[in-house]
């Protein structure tokens, strides 16, 4: 079954037939986490690095922000049978899109904030396809953790 994940959402599955899918990542980042021993996969579509900019939104949609979404993702993975020690993380997205003042790069800041959380919580990023200026769609198979990134006309394995 295909499980579509919108902006600020996350889903976790331990069903081998499932595929987690998220679309049109611009400056947003998909964090794909996988426990290969227990075949538990989780994907979150993060839009902004820090919930301090809008704490009300963070309460309603914690997955929108790296600092509030990532703990939820890993909690749910553990609930579905993942062992935190086994979890491997890959990232996709974080295209270089400037803010309205053409000042800071939101995609880069998202990627950095996510890595900061992961590093401080004992998760390493083993692979990433971030930056650049293209939109990306991500498909993530629960059975084997295979991740395919695509954009208009191209597909590649992460």
């Amino acid at each position, binding site marked *: 079954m295909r499980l579509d994940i919108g902006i600020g959402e996350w889903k976790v599955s331990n069903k081998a037939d499932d595929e987690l899918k998220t679309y049109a990542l611009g400056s947003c980042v998909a964090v794909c986490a996988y426990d290969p021993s227990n075949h538990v996969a989780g994907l979150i579509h993060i839009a902004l690095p820090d919930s301090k900019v809008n704490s009300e939104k963070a309460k309603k949609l914690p997955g929108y922000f790296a600092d509030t979404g990532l703990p939820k993702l890993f909690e749910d993975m553990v609930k579905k049978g993942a062992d935190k020690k086994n979890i491997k993380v890959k990232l996709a997205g974080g295209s270089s899109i400037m803010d309205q003042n053409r*000042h*800071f*790069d939101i995609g*880069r*800041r998202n990627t*950095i*904030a996510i*890595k*900061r959380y992961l*590093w*401080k919580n*004992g998760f390493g990023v083993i692979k990433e396809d971030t930056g650049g200026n293209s939109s990306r769609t991500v498909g993530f198979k629960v059975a084997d953790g295979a991740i395919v990134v695509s954009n208009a006309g191209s597909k590649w394995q992460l």
Partner: protein
Amino acid sequence: MREVTKEQAKAALLRATQNTLGEMAFIDVIEAEEQRDFETGQLLFIEFYKPVRGRLLLALPLEIKREIVENIHAADWDELSVNEIDDCLLELLNVLGGNFLRELEQKDVKVHLSFPTVLFSLEEIPDLDSFWKFSFDAEGNPFTTSLALHEEEA
């Protein structure tokens, strides 16, 4: 020595600082929109000899110093020794110096740097007026890097 303009140096230093602080300490850096005063919590200094000669001074407020150290060690400030704090800041400056020279040359060149050191006062650098001073912003906190490039000795 080839002529390096202030703009070229600033662009190379910005890219190097973004890469170094982003990769090592998970802190995003941008060019500051305006110069803001801050109380210096740490002064770090390094000299370089190849492919160009010069000196680099990094001035950090306590907030950024603490953020860098906590992020690199993935530990709370209170758990860290003075040596652990100094070591990671000096290593950061060492990497920043190398990255700056590679960004300046636009290629992966061999670089030669001094050991980085902690300064206790700006008075330890008598000709500070000859440095270019660049202001950056680390996720809302200001800091500066000052740079002097020198002619090769005959």
